[in-house]
């Protein structure tokens, strides 16, 4: 019940296209859903996060869509650029807990 399931495992998108990464969770106590971006040899960097009281959050080219009833959330990267090529992790946390539960990661490759 603590798992966060992420798909796809890898994604190849043309420059200018839309990248979509999906995550699903079981634990309804989760109340914070961040996305992290990780470049090779670096630590995960917080990209954007959402709480379940809103269905969508947009920051620049990055949008989180949240479906509370389906227990799913997704990251949309509009106008994908080669510099977006990285591994993306969704995560979840419940307010009283300290730990983030991460998804398995999606390796995104944006072709020039």
């Amino acid at each position, binding site marked *: 019940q603590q798992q966060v399931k992420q798909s796809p495992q890898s994604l190849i998108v043309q420059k200018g296209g839309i990248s979509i990464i999906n995550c699903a969770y079981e634990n309804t106590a989760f109340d914070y859903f961040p996305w992290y971006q990780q470049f090779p040899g*670096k*630590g995960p960097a*917080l990209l954007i996060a959402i709480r379940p009281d809103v269905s969508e959050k947009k920051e620049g080219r990055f949008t989180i869509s949240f479906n509370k009833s389906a227990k799913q959330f997704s990251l949309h990267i509009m106008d994908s650029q080669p510099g977006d090529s990285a591994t993306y992790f969704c995560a979840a946390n419940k*307010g009283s807990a*300290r*730990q*983030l539960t*991460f998804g*398995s990661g999606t390796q995104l490759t944006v072709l020039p």
Partner: protein
Amino acid sequence: EPEVTQTPSHQVTQMGQEVILRCVPISNHLYFYWYRQILGQKVEFLVSFYNNEISEKSEIFDDQFSVERPDGSNFTLKIRSTKLEDSAMYFCASSAMTGGTEAFFGQGTRLTVV
């Protein structure tokens, strides 16, 4: 921009040896964490630390592991007797608020146990 810094960036150690991984969290943060990432796998929570004590730990964080905040700036992870399966990237993170929200990660220490 404030950042979490970790040293060393890469450590090679022999099986059975003790290692200490060091972290300097962001200065005004109160919550500290260690995570690990085995090559090609997801990031896994190890332990969280607040107010000079462990607040949560995972099943991975057994008696071989310990954490300490020896002074006002450093946060360390000690592995007493390393095993081959401890080989991983270890990330320190810190946050200003509870709940793991807005946790900032360091660049990691790659631990290789031979």
